[in-house]
């Protein structure tokens, strides 16, 4: 479980987040939506513990955190396998165990045969798959995703999302998923919140009750439309 | 850039200076004969100043390095500009510049001593010879940086030669000259001192060589201190203002000033 309690954060004179409270239960997936620069990434960093709030608390009992960034952020001088074993260092595993686990998850993500390729020799989609493998090789109890599919073309994005869904079915974990696409949120999340304003506050939240496996195209369209309405409503009062 | 380049007083910088001085004193006291005490160095420096030897030798060395620098920088500028405008010249000069950049200055000094004998003209020759490539490289690189797009734009709009010179070539060249000159200036003094040390009857380098014969370490370090002051003044009035000026519009590698020998 991870919980934000009245969290406020400023950088210099600019207040980014203002008394944000949220809670993610075990194996629950929370999507955060909102315009860019609103502090979504800051929420993730606080959840990861690399940024401390100015006021309020972040309470977390999560031990193993997997993080997927918008860019793959792989070490260019390490192979795919080397990038995955990197995060297994210092966790009391032998070299063989590390390689075994990393190889298994790369295989699961369809990268068998590419273990010894350097990132520069992999395609963009493959690199992001290595990044996903790196996040899930730890058996994370909390996965943090920062717009991981932005900038990829639509086909690639759909296939990566499918892989992510399969990974989650295989290894369910709590997750915070930052995105600006309502469809993405409906596809993956149990709950979505909307950050809005300066400084950012939680302006709306929405639950998706239907189990993930049973969400068909029409459900996704319908819920995404609702979510879009919520997102645009915030901007409309001025314009009428 | 980073926090440590601000102009506030830095306690650890002062600590660094203190460490050097304390380590010096410790070595000087413990290993007698190896290093003179700082006090002795100070006294030597005072003595040099009082006997006006300091002024005389400094004037001689400064005069030589300035003359050498002027000749070398001018040569470097003209050859560099010629090479920048006309590629054949660049390739014609390439072997010469390559040899100059890879030859240890001591070797060239040996030859120059044969050519010019011992004295001023040799030191000036060496200084000019080793400041020239610095200016040359700086000007050639500066001209290479002139944006091909800008030149195309100028051609499309049929800018006059005058405008072309005034608004495209000159600003680029001015920067190159400034950088080249700032770095060449630091090199010039060091080369002069080296040339004097190996083959001259006067100047700071000669005075340093004499301390070796007289085994007068305190005096050697007094002269080293003089060199450091000269370098510091150069840095203060020339190199760092230029670097600061350049930083306004492009990042300049701070390594450039360090490559010396």
């Amino acid at each position, binding site marked *: 479980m991870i919980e934000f309690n009245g969290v406020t954060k400023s950088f210099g004179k600019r207040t980014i987040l203002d008394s944000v409270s949220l809670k993610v239960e075990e194996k629950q997936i929370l999507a955060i939506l909102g315009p860019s620069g609103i502090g979504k990434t800051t929420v993730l*960093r606080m959840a*990861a513990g*690399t940024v401390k709030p100015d006021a309020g608390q972040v309470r977390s009992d999560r031990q193993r*955190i997997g*993080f997927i*960034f918008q860019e793959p*952020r792989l*070490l*260019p*001088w*390490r*192979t795919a396998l080397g990038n995955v074993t*990197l*995060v297994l*260092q210092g966790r009391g595993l032998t070299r063989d165990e590390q390689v075994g686990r990393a190889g298994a998850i790369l295989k699961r993500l369809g990268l068998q045969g590419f273990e010894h390729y*350097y*990132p*520069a020799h992999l395609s963009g989609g493959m690199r992001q798959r290595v990044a996903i493998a790196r996040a899930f090789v730890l058996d994370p109890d909390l996965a943090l995703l920062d717009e991981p599919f932005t900038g990829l073309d639509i086909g690639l994005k759909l296939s990566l999302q499918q892989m992510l869904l399969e990974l989650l079915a295989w290894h369910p974990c709590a997750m915070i998923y930052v995105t600006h696409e309502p469809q993405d949120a409906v596809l993956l999340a149990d709950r979505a919140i909307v950050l809005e304003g300066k400084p950012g506050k939680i302006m709306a939240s929405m639950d998706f009750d239907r189990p993930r496996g049973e969400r068909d195209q029409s459900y996704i369209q319908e819920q995404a439309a609702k979510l879009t309405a919520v997102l645009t409503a915030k901007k409309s009062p001025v314009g009428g | 850039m*980073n926090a*440590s380049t601000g102009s506030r007083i830095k306690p*650890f*910088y002062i*600590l660094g200076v203190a*460490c*050097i001085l304390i380590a010096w004193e410790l070595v000087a006291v413990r290993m007698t004969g*190896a*290093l003179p005490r700082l006090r002795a160095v100070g006294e030597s420096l005072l003595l040099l100043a009082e006997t006006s030897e300091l002024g005389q030798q400094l004037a001689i060395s400064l005069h030589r390095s300035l003359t050498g620098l002027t000749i070398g920088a001018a040569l470097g500028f003209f050859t560099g500009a010629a090479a920048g405008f006309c*590629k*054949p010249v660049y390739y*014609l000069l390439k*072997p010469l510049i*390559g*040899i100059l950049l*890879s*030859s*240890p200055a*001591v*070797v*060239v000094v*040996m*030859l120059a001593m*044969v050519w010019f004998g011992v004295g001023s003209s040799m030191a000036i020759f060496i200084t000019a010879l080793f400041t020239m490539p610095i200016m040359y490289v700086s000007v050639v690189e500066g001209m290479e940086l002139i944006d*091909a797009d800008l030149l195309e734009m100028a*051609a499309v709009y049929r800018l006059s030669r005058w405008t072309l010179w005034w608004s495209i070539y000159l600003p680029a060249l001015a920067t190159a000259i400034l950088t080249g000159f700032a770095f060449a200036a630091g090199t010039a003094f*060091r080369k002069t*001192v080296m040339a004097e*040390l*190996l083959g001259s009857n006067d100047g700071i380098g000669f005075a*340093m060589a004499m301390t*070796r014969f007289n085994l007068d370490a305190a005096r*050697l370090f007094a*002269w*080293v201190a003089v*060199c450091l002051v000269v*370098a510091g003044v150069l*840095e203060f009035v020339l190199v760092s203002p230029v670097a600061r000026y350049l930083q306004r519009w492009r990042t300049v590698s*701070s*390594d450039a000033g360090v*490559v010396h*020998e």
Partner: protein
Amino acid sequence: MNNWLKAKKAMPLVWMITGTVAFTLAWQMMARVYGPLLVATPAETLESAVRLFTSPPAVAAFSRTLGRVLLALGLQIMAGLAFGLLAGFYPWVEDLFKPAVSILVAVPPVALALFVIFVFGGGERQVVAAAVALGFPLLYGGAVTAVRSVDRGLLEMLRVFRVPKATQLLAAYVPATLYSLLPSILLAAGLTVRLLIMAEVIVGVDRGIGQALSQARVHMATAEIFAWMLVMAATVLLIEGVMLYLVKSHVLAWQARR
């Protein structure tokens, strides 16, 4: 301007050869005018260079100096990297080292060589130490800049995954720094050759190019001095070439293939 750009692509080799020929001709003329005692002719120089490579003492001097150069270069890289990483991480360390580094940069190298004689006496180790000290600021400064420009995204990644500090250092900082340091290392190779020979001449160490040069000077063997200069220029080119080759084939295997 357009013609010029076109010509730029086709010309280099032709002009480089022309340049070398013109340089040799000019040199030959100088030698004619000033006589063999002042300027050796290209032919004499070449002959002398060949003789150097067939005379055991000269070969011994060359390999001695080359060994010292490689040792000094290796030490420089290690010291530059170690201290550069430290100073890159902690600005106060940089402040602490700044006075010493400024002195090393500002002091005339010959004066430092004299300093070494005074304090530590003459000898092989002292010569190498002087070359290391004088070359150090280049790699140190490069390493400090390199550490500070390591990709922030990668660093954040290492932090959120709680990668142990030692692994962070070895897996991320050292490769990233070494990689940005490559141009400086190439520069340092040429610099070290020059510094080391300077130190050999000033400190007057046994066996080495420095001593061979001093002797050639005493004997007024101009051709031999010229030959050594040629050999040194070639050596610098060779070291740079070998390093570039090693770097391209091994170190940069991870870069995109062309």
